[in-house]
Structures are given as C-alpha cells and as structure tokens.
C-alpha cells in the first residue's frame, strides 16, 4: 500500500496520427494540489480524461487508493469519487442550477405512493445547504442561461461535491475568469484541499501554480518532462521546461508614433436578440500606429462591439467613422473594401469556411475582385498563386498546401491563415478579437510580433483581449469595458494591471473618488 491516492503508471494513449500520451507516469498524494503544466496539445487533458473514464489508455495502469482499476466511464469515475470540471462547461442551458447539479442522481418522490417523479423541492434545499457548506453560494432556481460564467463554474464544482468527489480535477479553470474571480476560485480550491480533497489542476498559467500548487508535473508533446516541487522552483525554469526552450516573457515594442485618426466610434449602442443593450453608448477612437486594446471579462459586450464595427451586427444607435467617412450604414463587404480587416473570435465558425481549401480561404475576402475573377468567372490559377505567396510569407503549415481542407489543419495554422488573409488586405484598420486564445506560447509570440509589425507599418489596431498579460504587453491605449460600458480609457503606461483588473470588474476608480 503506497501513500498515493492516484497512481498512473506508464500511460500511453494514441489517437490517429498522434501520440497524445507517451509513457507518462504520475503519482498524486491525498490532500495535495497537484498541477499539470504544459502547452496546448501537450497531453494534459487527455491524461485527465483517462482518469475520468472518458478514454481508456492503450497501455499502462491506473491505481486508485491502492487498487488497480480500469475506469470505463465517467460514471465509474464518479463511483470512485473522482470529479472533473471541464474546460468547456457541461451544463444544460435551459435547466436550473439545481436540475443541472442533480442530473443523473435525482432525488425521487412518490405521488400518491405510486408515481415516481423528480423531487425538485428537496433538490433545491439540498443544493442550497451544500453551497453554503463550501462557501459557494448559488440560487438553485436560476436558469443557467441567465447566470455568468463564474457562477456556471460554481455549478460545475457543486456538481462534483454533490457526487461526493474526493479527487477533483480542474481543467484550465481560470481561462474565462477575471483576476478577482480567479483569486476567489483559488481560495476555494485551497479550502477544498484543507477539507481533505485531492486536487489536480490542469493549466498553462505559471503564476497560478506558483500561488497554490504543492507539486507540478510538466508535460511537453505527450511526454512527462519533470515533476517539480513548486515552492523550490522559479517560474522561469518551469516555463522553459514547458516549452522546451528559452522563452521571453516580454514583447519588444518600440515607442508609438501616432498618425491621423483612422477609426472613430461615437455613442455606439448595440442590442442583442432579446433587445437587451449589450453595448451602451461607447465612444473612442484609434489612430494610425496605435494599438487600442479593449480589455474586459468575457461576455461584457466586447464581441458585439467588434462585430458592430465590422458590420456583422447592426447597432441600434451611434456612428462608426472610418478615415473620415461615416460607414455606419455600410454592408460588411463595403466596410472590408473601405479598409477594415477583422480577425474574429470564433475562427472555426466565422473566420474560416472549414470545408473549403486553404487557397479558397485565403482568397475569401477578395475572390470577387480582379485578378481572382473577371465578369463573374473565377480563375483558379490566381487563387493558387496567391495562396502560395501567403503560405510562404506567413509560414502556414499544412499537409497538402493550397489544397488542404482547412478543417484538417492545426488551430495555430488556422489562425495564421486568417491573420495572413486579413493582414494581406492592407486595410487601414485591423480588428483582432482574442487572437491568441487557445494557442501555445510559440504561436502566441508569433502573433504578437505580427500585431506589433502592423503597428510599425502605421496601421490602426483594435485588439480585444481577455488576457491581462496580453493587454499590458501590447496596448498603447487601454479601454476597459464592463457590462457594455467603457469604464476607463487611458494611456497604457498610466495604468497598473491591478487597476485594469478592477475596472474589468466594474469597481475601478472608487479609490480615486474617495
């Protein structure tokens, strides 16, 4: 009998064309916070999915509390008191919090001693009690659609606790949270550990590990690189191990040289489908050679703001001016031609036609112009030569070059393709929405360089970012958005990360007033 609660020995898992885990072994002690660190595609999530019974390992063994087990399903994992909060929450959007938590383990009552039905009243009471016990207050009767991301995460945590999980796996839990919410979450995780729970934290954020983890396993390309004691290791060492080379944390950025105003947004108001105002009376402007960053927590209207500027949704009020011309009533096509490039948030559903070839996608914004087509007839050879040019210039890697179906390309290269297409248009304004989301450090570095490069060419850049680091590293000017309203616009050098974080929570500037 060992003193480990979890042992995963010599685990290997292959997927078509890739070895996701290659002879990985980890041992986790009861009551510790164990971090799994690695870039995207390093195999962290795969490893934990096997612990949670979503896949079975091709080779290797899993030992839980000294017993060798074959975890066949999430159900089985639950029985072994293992719980997992997935990166993408698994919640039913039109159900209440209580219904979501109890699903699969519903309390049942009998009406007239005969008809079994779900006892929602008891469920609500149980969950209220449970949430109070762990300091995770929720209103069990609220519908998931109507609560924010942080609350949804609480529901996921309560789901595990409701199932009496002892081993809690968190997959990138902080990716969608504000700095303050992250603090709160880390506090919760710590107190769960103090309650005797064992925690496994999947992340690529070094500070979090430094803050709360006891030990940390580093994965790189499916292999276990090292297991470190967090207290005695510095973040720089961890980062180098994770990436497999030296990384620089800061971006080289020359001093700004602003030119004339390119974009002016005045009193812009946007309503969503339910007629609810998601962008409220927003005004700002962006100049040549300026990176204007709209910082904010996910879901505060920044996507709608970008969409409204690019023409994907119609604003209900206000104006958008580009290079002096009022483009508020322009169609999307007309705005593109007038000089807007747009790298959207959702690269799969919006930025690319996934079933088209790379060449077709690279020409997606100019296929209708000469030389790509004349009088309505398309000239395929122009697509090919244009594609070759961009593939070469932006180092887009794919299996079959121009003819590759974009769906089969890696996320990083898909994003490269979008950025290549948009930059090559030579527009005076380029809008980037979370351009580095879900990419690994190497790809992030590359994209940051591209953005700075555009700035040096005198282009106006509007960047929408959720990552505080990215905001602080790239911004010339920061506009913080909260609940659809711009809270603060200031030169980036005048704001500290903490201040930006406070504005993102809608509580910024209070100290100044007092």
């Amino acid at each position, binding site marked *: 009998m060992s003193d480990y609660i979890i042992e995963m020995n010599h685990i290997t898992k292959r997927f078509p064309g890739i070895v996701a885990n290659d002879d990985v072994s980890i041992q986790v002690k009861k009551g510790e916070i164990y971090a799994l660190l690695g870039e995207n595609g390093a195999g962290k999530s795969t490893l934990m999915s096997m612990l949670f019974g979503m896949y079975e390992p091709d080779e290797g063994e899993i030992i839980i509390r000294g017993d060798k087990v074959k975890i066949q399903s999430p159900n089985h994992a639950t029985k072994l008191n293992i719980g997992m909060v997935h990166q993408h929450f698994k919640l039913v959007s039109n159900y209440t919090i209580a219904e979501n938590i109890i699903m699969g383990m519903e309390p049942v009552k009998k009406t007239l001693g005969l008809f079994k039905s779900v006892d929602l009243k008891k469920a609500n009471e149980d969950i209220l009690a449970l949430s109070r016990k762990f300091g995770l207050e929720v209103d069990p009767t609220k519908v998931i659609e109507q609560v924010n991301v942080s609350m949804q995460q609480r529901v996921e945590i309560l789901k595990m606790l409701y199932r009496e999980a002892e081993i809690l796996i968190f997959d990138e839990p902080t990716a969608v949270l504000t700095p303050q919410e992250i603090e709160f979450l880390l506090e919760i995780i710590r107190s769960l550990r103090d309650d005797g729970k064992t925690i496994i934290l999947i992340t690529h954020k070094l500070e979090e590990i430094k803050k709360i983890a006891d030990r940390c396993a580093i994965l790189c390309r499916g292999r276990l690189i090292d297991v470190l004691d967090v207290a005695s290791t510095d973040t720089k060492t961890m980062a180098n191990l994770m990436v497999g080379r030296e990384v620089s944390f800061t971006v080289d950025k020359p001093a700004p040289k602003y030119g004339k105003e390119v974009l002016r947004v005045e009193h812009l108001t946007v309503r969503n489908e339910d007629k609810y105002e998601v962008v409220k009376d927003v005004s700002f402007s962006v100049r040549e050679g300026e990176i204007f960053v709209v910082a904010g927590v996910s879901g505060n209207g920044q996507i709608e703001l970008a969409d409204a500027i690019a023409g994907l949704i119609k604003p209900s009020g206000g104006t958008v001016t580009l290079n002096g011309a009022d483009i508020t009533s322009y169609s999307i*096509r007309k705005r593109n031609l007038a000089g807007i490039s747009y790298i959207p948030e959702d690269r799969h559903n919006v*930025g690319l036609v996934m079933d*088209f070839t790379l060449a077709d996608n690279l020409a*997606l914004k100019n296929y209708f112009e000469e030389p790509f*087509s004349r009088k*309505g*007839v398309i000239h395929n050879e122009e697509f090919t030569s244009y594609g070759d040019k961009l593939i070469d210039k932006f180092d887009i890697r794919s299996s079959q070059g121009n003819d590759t179906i974009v769906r089969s390309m890696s996320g990083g290269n898909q994003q490269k393709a979008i950025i290549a297409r948009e930059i090559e248009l030579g527009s005076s304004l380029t809008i980037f929405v979370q351009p580095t989301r879900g990419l690994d450090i190497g790809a992030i570095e590359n994209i940051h360089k591209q953005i700075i490069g555009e700035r040096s060419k005198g282009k106006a850049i509007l960047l929408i970012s959720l990552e505080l680091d990215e905001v602080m590293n790239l911004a010339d000017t920061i506009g913080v958005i909260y609940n659809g309203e711009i809270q603060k616009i200031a030169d980036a050098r005048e704001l500290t990360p903490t201040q930006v974080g406070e504005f993102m929570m809608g509580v910024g500037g209070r100290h100044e007033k007092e």
Partner: protein
Amino acid sequence: MKKNKNGIIHKVILQTIGHEKRQHYMIPVFTILLSLIFGAIVIALLGSNPFKAYYNLLQGSGLAPKASYAGHKGIITDFTSFLNALTPMLFAALAVLIALKAGLFNIGVSGQMLAAGFTATVLIGYSTLPAIVAKPLVVLIGFVIGALAGAVVGFLKHRFNINEVVSTIMFNYIFQYVVSFLINTFYVDPVSRQSKNVGASGRLTLVDVVIGDYKMDIPLGILLAAVGIAVTAFIMNKTILGFEIKAVGSSMRAAEYAGIQVGRTRVLAMMLSGGFAGLAGVTYYMGYFASIQPKVLVSTGYDAIAVALLGNSSPIGIIFSSFLITVISKGSTYMNSASGVQAEIASAITGIILLFSACGAYVKYKVNRWKEDN
C-alpha cells in the same frame, strides 16, 4: 455490418474503397452493389430468378434486347422512352443538388414540378400556338414558375427564419390540393379523370415519330438536361455565384463574415433550384406525360434527393445515379410481366439503395479507421 475484421472480405473492402482518391465514387458503387445483392435475395425468396429479373430491368429500359417486340417497336424505341423518363429525373436531381450546395434541403421539388407543369399546361398546352413558339415558351414558363416557387421558400427562410424543410413540405400540399381543385373544376377529362391532354405543339417530347421501321418518342428535354448539367457544373466550379453558394452552404456565418449576402445568395440558389424543378415539371407533365393526375404528387422529387445523394452531390455523379434509379423504376413494368415480380419491388430496391447510401459517410469513416489500424 462487416464484422470480420481480419477476413478476406475486409481486405477486399480495403483494397477497393480504402483508397482516398477513389472513395468518392467507390463508396456509392459499393453501397449500390450491396443493395442489389439484398434485392436479389428478396427476389429469390419470392421464387423468381434474380438475374433474370435484373436483366428484365435492362430490357425494359432499352439497354438490352427483349425476346420479341410489338410492331414498330424495338430496343431503340425502348431506349428513347427510357430517356424520356430520365429527363425529369435529371432536372429534379439538379434542383436538389443546387439547394444542397447552399445548405438547403429542397424537399419541395415535387410540388414545384407540379406548379410549373400545371401552369405551362394551362397557359401553353391548351393554346393553339405553333410548336416553334410553344415549346420554348413551355420551357421558359416552367423555369420561371419553378424559380418563383423556389424564391418564395428562400425568402421565407431569409426573412422569417422559416425552416425550408417545413415550408417546402407545406407548399407541396398546397400546390397538390390547389392544382387538384383547379383541374377538377376547370380542366378535367371526364373519361380519364385527369387533366385534359396537352396539344402536340407544346409537348416537349415528339410522340410517335416514324424513323425507318420504328415509331418512337423523342424527348427533346434530354438535350436541355445535358445543357443543364453542364451549366450547373460551370456555375458551381467556375463562377463567383457558385463560390458564394458553396460558402453559404458550408458555413453561413463565415460566408456572412466574408461579406457575402447570405440571404440573397440563398434566394438565388433556391431560384435556380426551383427553376430546375420547374423544368423537371414541364418535361414530366408535358413531355413524358401529357396530362396531370389530380391529388397526386409524383415521387420524382423525393427520389431526386436520393439521386443527388447517391451521385455524391456532383453534377457528373448525378448522371450515373439518375440512370440507375430510372433503369430500376422504368424497367420494373417489364420485369413484372416477364418474371412475375411485383413492380413495386423496384421502389423498394430504390429505397434500400437510399438506405445504404445514407450510411455512406459512416462506411467511409469506418474504412478509414481500419486503414489506420493496419
């Protein structure tokens, strides 16, 4: 299906349909063979010789010689008659295909056929215009009415977000009953209980043309269908419109983002689709037949969905799949008289082919998995 993972069959399957470049036509061929074998077993169980029955299908379609022919008949007359039946199927399949490319399911081809066929019948078929004017007018009216019917569906989808599957089904019934009412009230032939026959000048098939010793029906529409296929292939592969239709069909949001007017493109695609359905209608009701049976919606529109699917949604593929399905349906009457197999089994076999072809994506997925395992 196909459990024997290491057997010879497994190897043969891998050899034949494992090759990625060939998959797009090998998988349909494979599913068709499977269905034909299945049909053969059923025919054998019913006590008939399946090989003979299948040969009868070819004979009935003028692709193989019959033992004997009636006066003025021959294999060539059977074949032109087969082409006569093939024409509407080709158009209908094109209609389904174009909509499919735009990401829309045009289940209303049959209704659009009826609307166009009926309008052309009433306006031109019962007129006394000379053939040289009447025939082009029939084609024109067929296309325009079909296109209008399609455009409405596209518009409802674009403007009111009404699922095209639902609206086309609704229109199918509306056309069916309205046309039935109009025929019964104004245009009914008291003997046949169908609409009165159209005149020869408006009809797109030349009936009983004497060539040499034969009297045959010559479908002019087949030439038009050939042009239709070529035009569709050109539009889809070589024009901006085709590019936009495909973009909208693959990803509506990406297309919109790229500056394509999604609504306009969809309406245009549905217009083209409906237009071809209209041509199917006039070549059916004023070519293959000369009258309309009230309260009946022909199955061509539904079969065409299968034909388009089987033809791998490519204009060239459609030629082959239309051919196959028409052979089965057209030859079934002769099969019934020669082998005594119920003619209805033809549509059952068609149904089975469809069933298997709907599994095509799964077969492809499985085969590729096997390939990776090996």
